[in-house]
C-alpha cells in the first residue's frame, strides 16, 4: 500500500482535489503540501516547485522527530506539529490510515484553532482516497 | 598490466631516479608488449642486465652486464650506454646488444635461465613523473631515489652482508645474493623468517604473478596466491612458529586458473610476518634512516591489531618518520615501531624517502606527544579506556 504513493495517479489526483477544497476553506492559507512520510511530494498548492519539494523533505523529518519524541515519552505517535512564528504558522498532521502527511502554511490572520480544524478536515478528506484504487 | 609472453632474460633497475626509472619501465613494457623484447624487469641486482645511473658503484657478477644512463654530453661511449633523453630505440638496441652477448656466453652452471613471464607494472604516478619532467625539463623536480633497492645505503649493505654470512646451506643465496631468491621458479631456504622475507618482498614488489608455498618443520604449510592476494594455512596464526629452525619458500609462476579458489586475505599473513615473525629489528630492505609515510591505511578490521598499532598508523599517515621517530612519538618500543614498518612495507602501504632525503617535513617529534600517549586530554585515550582496550 505504501509503495510509490507519490507516483500513483489516483492518489495524486485525489490529493490535488483535497488541497483545492482546503484552499477554499481558508483565505489565509499560504501554501500546502501533501507528502509521503519518507519525504516525497505528492501534490502542492502555491509555492514554487523547488520550495514545495524542500518543504516535503523537511516536513517528513519533522514528523519523524515528533514521533521520536512522542515515542520516547511514551505518548504514542505524534498527531500534529505546529510551528508558530511572528508572521504565521505551519501546521502538519498525518493523513489517517496512510503513510501521508499534510503540511500547510497560514499567515497570522488565521487563528490557530481555525487553522487546525481546516487542516484536519483536509487530512480527513485526503483519507477518503480509495485504498483499492490507490493500490492499483 | 601483465602480458603472458615468455621472458628470456631479466633486467634489474638499480639506483635510477624516479623519472629515469619510470621512462625505462614504460619503454620496457611497451617493447615487451610489442614483442620487440623478451625481458622481464625486476628491482634487484641479480639480473642478467643491470641498468643503473651515472657511475653508481654496482657490484656485478662476471656474467652480468651493467648498462649506465648518462647525460647527453657524457664523453664515454660503448654498447651499454644510454644517453638522456632516453629513447625507445636506444633501449631496444641496448637489449639486443645484451641478448647477443648473453647468448654467446654459456649459462652459469648453478642457475638456469629464468622461465618467467610478465613484466612489472608501472607504478601509479610514474607516468606523471615523466610527463612532468618532459613538459618542463628546466623546472623538473629534484630526482628522488626510488625507495626499493635504489640507493644501497650503508646499513642495507651491512644487513645484506649479515645475511650472506656462511651458513650450512643455502647455496643459491650465498652465491647469488639474497635478491636472487625473488625470482619465480626458485626456492629459498632460510633459518628464520627474515631469511625468506626478502624473497617475499621482492615477489610483492615486482608483481610477477607468482604462487608460493612456505614449508616449516612440524607446522602446516602456507599456500600463497599472490595475484589473487590470498593464502591458505590451517590454524593460522597459532599454528605458525615464530622462530622456526628452517623456512623454505618455493615460488612458481602462476598459471591461468591455478589461483586459490578461497583463502584468507594475504595482508593478514604479511601483517603477521612483518609485526611478529621478523624479529626485533627492521626488515633487511629498510634502513634506520629511511623516512616513511603511509600511503593507505591497512584494513584493520581483518588484522589482529592493538591500540599501539592504530596510534602508530595515525602518526604515519600524517608525517614522514623514521622508525626511531615513530617509536618516540608513539611511546612504543623501537621493536614495535620496526614491526609495523616491516608489515606496511610488505603490504605495499609505505612511501619511503631514502637518504639523502629532503629536509624533514616534520619537526623532530617530541617523545610521547602522539595520539593518546598522554593520559589526559585525548579523546582517543579516554575512549580506549572506556572500551576496555
Amino acid at each position: 500500500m505504501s509503495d510509490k504513493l507519490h507516483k500513483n495517479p489516483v492518489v495524486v489526483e485525489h490529493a490535488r482535489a483535497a488541497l483545492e477544497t482546503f484552499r477554499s476553506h481558508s483565505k489565509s492559507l499560504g501554501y500546502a503540501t501533501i507528502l509521503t512520510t519518507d519525504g516525497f511530494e505528492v501534490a502542492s498548492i502555491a509555492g514554487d516547485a523547488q520550495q514545495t519539494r524542500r518543504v516535503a523533505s523537511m516536513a517528513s523529518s519533522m514528523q519523524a522527530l515528533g514521533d521520536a519524541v512522542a515515542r520516547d515519552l511514551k505518548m504514542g505517535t505524534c498527531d500534529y506539529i505546529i510551528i508558530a512564528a511572528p508572521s504565521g504558522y505551519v501546521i502538519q498532521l498525518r493523513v489517517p490510515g496512510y503513510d501521508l502527511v499534510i503540511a500547510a502554511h497560514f499567515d497570522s490572520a488565521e487563528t490557530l484553532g481555525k487553522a487546525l480544524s481546516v487542516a484536519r478536515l483536509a487530512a480527513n478528506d485526503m483519507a477518503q482516497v480509495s485504498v483499492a484504487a490507490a493500490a492499483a | 598490466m601483465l602480458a603472458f609472453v615468455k621472458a628470456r632474460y631479466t633486467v634489474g633497475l638499480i639506483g635510477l631516479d624516479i623519472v629515469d626509472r619510470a621512462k625505462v619501465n614504460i619503454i620496457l613494457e611497451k617493447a615487451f608488449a610489442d614483442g620487440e623484447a623478451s625481458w622481464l624487469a625486476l628491482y634487484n641486482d641479480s639480473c642478467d642486465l643491470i641498468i643503473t645511473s651515472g657511475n653508481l658503484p654496482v657490484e656485478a657478477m662476471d656474467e652480468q652486464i651493467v648498462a649506465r644512463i648518462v647525460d647527453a654530453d657524457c664523453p664515454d661511449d660503448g654498447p651499454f650506454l644510454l644517453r638522456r633523453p632516453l629513447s625507445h630505440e636506444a633501449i631496444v638496441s641496448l637489449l639486443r646488444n645484451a641478448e647477443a652477448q648473453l647468448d654467446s656466453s654459456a649459462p652459469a652452471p648453478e642457475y638456469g635461465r629464468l622461465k618467467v613471464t610478465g613484466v612489472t607494472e608501472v607504478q601509479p604516478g610514474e607516468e606523471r613523473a615523466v610527463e612532468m619532467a618532459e613538459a618542463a625539463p628546466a623546472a623538473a623536480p629534484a630526482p628522488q631515489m626510488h625507495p626499493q633497492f635504489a640507493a644501497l645505503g650503508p646499513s642495507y649493505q651491512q644487513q645484506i652482508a649479515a645475511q650472506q654470512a656462511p651458513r650450512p646451506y643455502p647455496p643459491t643465496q650465498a652465491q647469488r645474493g639474497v635478491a636472487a631468491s625473488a625470482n619465480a621458479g626458485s626456492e629459498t631456504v632460510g633459518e628464520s623468517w627474515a631469511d625468506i622475507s626478502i624473497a617475499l618482498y621482492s615477489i610483492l614488489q615486482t608483481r610477477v604473478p607468482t604462487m608460493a608455498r612456505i614449508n616449516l618443520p612440524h607446522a602446516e604449510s602456507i599456500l600463497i596466491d599472490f595475484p589473487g592476494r590470498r593464502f591458505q594455512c590451517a590454524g593460522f596464526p597459532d599454528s605458525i612458529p615464530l622462530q622456526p629452525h628452517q623456512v623454505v619458500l618455493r615460488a612458481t609462476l602462476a598459471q591461468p586458473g591455478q589461483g586459490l579458489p578461497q583463502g584468507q586475505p594475504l595482508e593478514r599473513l604479511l601483517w603477521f610476518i612483518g609485526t611478529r615473525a621478523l624479529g626485533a629489528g627492521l626488515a633487511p630492505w629498510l634502513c634506520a634512516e629511511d623516512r616513511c609515510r603511509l600511503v593507505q591505511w591497512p584494513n584493520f578490521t581483518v588484522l589482529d591489531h592493538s591500540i599501539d598499532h592504530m596510534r602508530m598508523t595515525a602518526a604515519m599517515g600524517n608525517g614522514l618518520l623514521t622508525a626511531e621517530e615513530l617509536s618516540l612519538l608513539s611511546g612504543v618500543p623501537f621493536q614495535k615501531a620496526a614491526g609495523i614498518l616491516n608489515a606496511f612495507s610488505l603490504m605495499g602501504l609505505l612511501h619511503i624517502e631514502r637518504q639523502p632525503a629532503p629536509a624533514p617535513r616534520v619537526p623532530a617529534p617530541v617523545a610521547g606527544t602522539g595520539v593518546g600517549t598522554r593520559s589526559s586530554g585525548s579523546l582517543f585515550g579516554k575512549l580506549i579506556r572506556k572500551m576496555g582496550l
Partner: protein
Amino acid sequence: MAEHVILFAGPMCAGKTTAIRSLSEIETISTEAANTDRETADKDTTTVALDYGEITIGDEDKVRLYGLPGQRRFDFMWRILMERAVGLVLLVNNDAADPLGQLAEFLEEFAELHERGGIVVGITRADIAEGPSLGDYAQTIAKSTSGAIIPVFTVDARDGNHMQTCLLSLIANIESRAALAYQQEQAA
C-alpha cells in the same frame, strides 16, 4: 562536559542506522518512515531525520553519534548536523550501483569536515557483494581529497568491533593531525 559530535553519512542502505545501534550505549533514537522508494533501496523503512546514539565517558565527555538520512533530498539535515561535527564516518555499501561514484560524491559534500576534522570510510556489505577493491576505494579517496590519507576499511555495520575500529581510527587520525599541526606551530 565536552561533546564530540560524530556523523554517519553515506547512501541509503549503507548501514548508518545499524552502525549507530552497534556503537551506542543508549537505546538509539531513530526516525524511520515507511520506504516508498523501493527502486533505490529494497527495505521497509528509511531514516528521514536522524539516528542518534551516545557514548558517555566519565562525567566529562559525551560522544554523540548522529546518523544522517542518505538521500540527497534530506541534505538540509546534513547541513544542520555538520555544523557541530568534528568527524565523519562515511559508509558506502559495496553492493550499490556505483559505489566509487557515491564515495566521491559524499566526500565532496563533506569536504568541509575533512578540512576541519577527519573522515573514516567504511565499506559495508562486502560480505554479500563483490564490488571494487579496497585499493580502488583508496584511490578514489586520494583523488577526491588531493592525496589525503584517510582510513578506509571493510566493515560490517552490525559488528560492534568493526565500528569501534572505525571510530577509534577516526579519532586517532584527528588527534594525530592536530598534534602534528601543534608541533609545526611550535617549531615555526
